[in-house]
C-alpha cells in the first residue's frame, strides 16, 4: 500500500534564523527532499504543523509569501514545550513540517480594491504572507494601508520589513504601540490598534479590511470597522484555535459546525456570523 | 426523606441558601441533584444508596456560586468536607451541611467544629468489598501483586474519572497535564497508567479519606480506591493520624517527626 501517512512530516532544514522580538524568531525552512520541494505549493492564509523532533508539533501559519519560491518561513513565540524546543534549534538543524492546510485569502476577488491590513502583536506573520503576496502583485490592487500595533516597541516583529514598507511610496504604513510601550525616540503612533484604525482607516468604499490579532483586539476592531462603514463581506480575519492534526479529525478546532483547520483559518466576518463567537 | 425535602424547600424559599446539593432518583441508582428552587427540592431523596461524594462539587465555583449553599452529606462526604476545610478550600459562612444520623434524625451542621465532632463518632471501617479484595492482595506474593495490578492497569484508558470524582483532586492544573517536562506519559499504556495511579496515591498521602469515589467512578472497574485506602491505613500509625479524621497537626507530608521510622535506611 502506498497510501500517504498524513501525519508524517516533511523534513526541513533551518536555513536562516532571525530574532524578531524577545522570544520571537523567524525560521526560513528548505525542503531536504528536492522532489518534495518541487511539488510543494501553498497560498496566502494557509498554515502548517511544525515539528520539533523530541517535543511534538505546533500550529502556525506560513509567514512567507507564495510568490517567494524555494522556501517557507514561520514566525513563532517561545511559549510552550514545542515552541521552546524549536527555539533551541540552530541554523542547519532538521525539523518537520506538515501542510499546507486550511483555506486561503480570496485574493483574486480582491483585484482592483484597496486593502487595509490590521494586525496586532505576534499576529503579523499570517498577515505578512498576505502583505508580501499583495506587494509582489502590486498592480492588482489600489491603495494599501497597513496598521500594525504591539504592546511595546520591543514587541514589534519584522522590524526591517516594517521599515521597508514604511519607505515604500505605494504603501501607507502606520505603526503603533500601546500607551506606555513607547520609547523616547518612538516616531509612530501611541494607542490601541482599534483607536488608531478609526483615525487612519481609508474609506470603506471598495476596500477590504483584513484583521489579525489576539481575540480581544479583533473583538474591539470589528465595531470600529462597522462604524467606518465596512460591510461584513469586506472584513476578513484568520482564527487560531488549538489544533493537533490540522486535517479536521482530532476535534479540537471545531467551532460550531465548522473546523478552523478545514473551513478556515480564513473567515470573512460574514462567515463568522454563522458560528458562535464564544467558541473562538 | 420527607424532612430533608421540607427543610431544603424552606432553606431555598427563605433565601437562606441559593442551592441545595443533594440526590435524586437516577437510571439505576440515585444521582447528584442541584436544587436551585423549592420546587425542585421535591425531587430530593436520601437513603443508603446515595453514595456519590457531593463534596466534589464544593470547590467548583461556577457551580456553587458566591452565595451560601447547602449540601446533603452522608458520613463519607462529611469526611471529605473536613479535609477540604483543613486544606483551606471551604469557608464556614458559605456552607450548610445537612445529614441524617443513624437514628434517622435530620441534623444540621453549621460549623466545621460541629462537623468534626459529628464525624469523630464514626470509625472508618473496610466494607465487604474492600475487605475481600485487600485480603486477597495481602495473601499474594510480590510477583503476584505486580501481575494483578499490571492486569488491572492494562484496562485503564486514562479517562481520569478517578480524578474527576475525587473531592480532593481540585487542582486547576494536574501533574499529568504538565508537559515541561512531560512528567507522566499522557497516553494509556500499563506503565504510564501505573505511574499515574502511583502519582495520584502519593498526592493523597495523609489526605485520602477513603470515600471510595474514585473506585466507584472507574468505568473499567479498576479497584483504584484500594490503592489510596491501603496507603492511608498503613500510614495512619506511621504518621499518627486517625483514618477518616482530619489531620490535627498539618498534612502528613508537609510535617515530620524526628523519630519517623527509618529502619529501611542504611
Amino acid at each position: 500500500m502506498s497510501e500517504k501517512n498524513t501525519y508524517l512530516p516533511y523534513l526541513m532544514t533551518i536555513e536562516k534564523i532571525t530574532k524578531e522580538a524577545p522570544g520571537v524568531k523567524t525560521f526560513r525552512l528548505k525542503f531536504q527532499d528536492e522532489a518534495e520541494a518541487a511539488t510543494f505549493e501553498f497560498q496566502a492564509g494557509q498554515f502548517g504543523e511544525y515539528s520539533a523532533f523530541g517535543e511534538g508539533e505546533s500550529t502556525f501559519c506560513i509567514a512567507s509569501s507564495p510568490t517567494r519560491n524555494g522556501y517557507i518561513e514561520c514566525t513563532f513565540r517561545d511559549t510552550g514545550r514545542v515552541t521552546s524546543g524549536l527555539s533551541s534549534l540552530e541554523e542547519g538543524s532538521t525539523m518537520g513540517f506538515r501542510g499546507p492546510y486550511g483555506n486561503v485569502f480570496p485574493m483574486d476577488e480582491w483585484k482592483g480594491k484597496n486593502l487595509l491590513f490590521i494586525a496586532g502583536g505576534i499576529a503579523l506573520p499570517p498577515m505578512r504572507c498576505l502583505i508580501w503576496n499583495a506587494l509582489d502583485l502590486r498592480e492588482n490592487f489600489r491603495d494599501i494601508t497597513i496598521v500594525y500595533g504591539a504592546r511595546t516597541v520591543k514587541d514589534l516583529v519584522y522590524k526591517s520589513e516594517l521599515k521597508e514598507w514604511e519607505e515604500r511610496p505605494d504603501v501607507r504604513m502606520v505603526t503603533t504601540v500601546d500607551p506606555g510601550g513607547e520609547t523616547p525616540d518612538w516616531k509612530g503612533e501611541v494607542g490601541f490598534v482599534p483607536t488608531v484604525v478609526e483615525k487612519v482607516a481609508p474609506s470603506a468604499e471598495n476596500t477590504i479590511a483584513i484583521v489579525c490579532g489576539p481575540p480581544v483586539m479583533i473583538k474591539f476592531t470589528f465595531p470600529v470597522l462597522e462604524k467606518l462603514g465596512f460591510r461584513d463581506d469586506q472584513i476578513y480575519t484568520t482564527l487560531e484555535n488549538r489544533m493537533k492534526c490540522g486535517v479536521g479529525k482530532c476535534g479540537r478546532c471545531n467551532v460550531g459546525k465548522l473546523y478552523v483547520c478545514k473551513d478556515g483559518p480564513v473567515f470573512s466576518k460574514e462567515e463568522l456570523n454563522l458560528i458562535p463567537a464564544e467558541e473562538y | 426523606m420527607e424532612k430533608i425535602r421540607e427543610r431544603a424547600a424552606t432553606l431555598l424559599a427563605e433565601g437562606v441558601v441559593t442551592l441545595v446539593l443533594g440526590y435524586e432518583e437516577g437510571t439505576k441508582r440515585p444521582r447528584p441533584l442541584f436544587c436551585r428552587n423549592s420546587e425542585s427540592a421535591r425531587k430530593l431523596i436520601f437513603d443508603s444508596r446515595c453514595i456519590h461524594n457531593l463534596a466534589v462539587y464544593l470547590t467548583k465555583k461556577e457551580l456553587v456560586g458566591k452565595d451560601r449553599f447547602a449540601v446533603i452529606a452522608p458520613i463519607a462526604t462529611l469526611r471529605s468536607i473536613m479535609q477540604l476545610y483543613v486544606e483551606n478550600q471551604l469557608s464556614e459562612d458559605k456552607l450548610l451541611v445537612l445529614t441524617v444520623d443513624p437514628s434517622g434524625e435530620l441534623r444540621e451542621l453549621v460549623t466545621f467544629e460541629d462537623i468534626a465532632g459529628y464525624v469523630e463518632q464514626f470509625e472508618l471501617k473496610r466494607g465487604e468489598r474492600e475487605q475481600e479484595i485487600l485480603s486477597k492482595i495481602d495473601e499474594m506474593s510480590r510477583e503476584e501483586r505486580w501481575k494483578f495490578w499490571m492486569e488491572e492497569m492494562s484496562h485503564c484508558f486514562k479517562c481520569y474519572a478517578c480524578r474527576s470524582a475525587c473531592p480532593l483532586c481540585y487542582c486547576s492544573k494536574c501533574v499529568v497535564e504538565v508537559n515541561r517536562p512531560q512528567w507522566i506519559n499522557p497516553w494509556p499504556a500499563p506503565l504510564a497508567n501505573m505511574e499515574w495511579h502511583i502519582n495520584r496515591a502519593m498526592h493523597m498521602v495523609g489526605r485520602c479519606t477513603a470515600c471510595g469515589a474514585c473506585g466507584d467512578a472507574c468505568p473499567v472497574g479498576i479497584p483504584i480506591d484500594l490503592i489510596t485506602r491501603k496507603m492511608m491505613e498503613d500510614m495512619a500509625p506511621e504518621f499518627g493520624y486517625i483514618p477518616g479524621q482530619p489531620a490535627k497537626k498539618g498534612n502528613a507530608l508537609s510535617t515530620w517527626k524526628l523519630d519517623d521510622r527509618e529502619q529501611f535506611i542504611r
Partner: protein
Amino acid sequence: MSSNTDFEPKIIAFVCNWCTYAGADLTGTSRLKYATNVKIVRFPCTGRIDFLLLLKSFAQGADGIIVSGCHPNDCHYTSGNFHARRRWIAFRSILDLMGVDIRRIQYSWVSAAEGSKWADLVNHTVADIRSLGPYQEYQKIADYLEKGGYHGED
C-alpha cells in the same frame, strides 16, 4: 541466580549535593575502590528528589536505585531530609502494594565525611541487585507500546 556473574547491574544513585555527593567525592580522593555500576545524579537536597524519578529510572533500564543524603539533623536546608524520609515511607508502602520490587531501592544517609560508607553502600547494593538479577519485569512493561500492544488489548 545468586551466582549470576555475567550480569552487571545498572544502578542510578540520586544523592544530595551537600553530604552524599561530597562523601562520594571523598571516596574517590581517598582512592577507595568500589563497584563501577553506579551513575550518580546530584540534587540540591533529598527533599528535591521526586519519587517519579525513581520509577523513570526503572523504566529506562535501571536494575537498582540508591537514594542518599545528609543524616537527620545535618540537612543543609534544616529539614529537607526529614520531609524526604516521610515521603519515602509512603512511597515504599504504595510501591509494595503495587508489587514493585522495593528491595531494589536502597535508601541511605551518607555524610561528607563518610567516604568509606559510600563505598560500602555501593558495593552492598551492587551485590544485592546482582543476586536479584536484572529488573526485566519492569523493563518489559516499559516497552509495551513497542511490542504491538497498540493494536488492541493483548
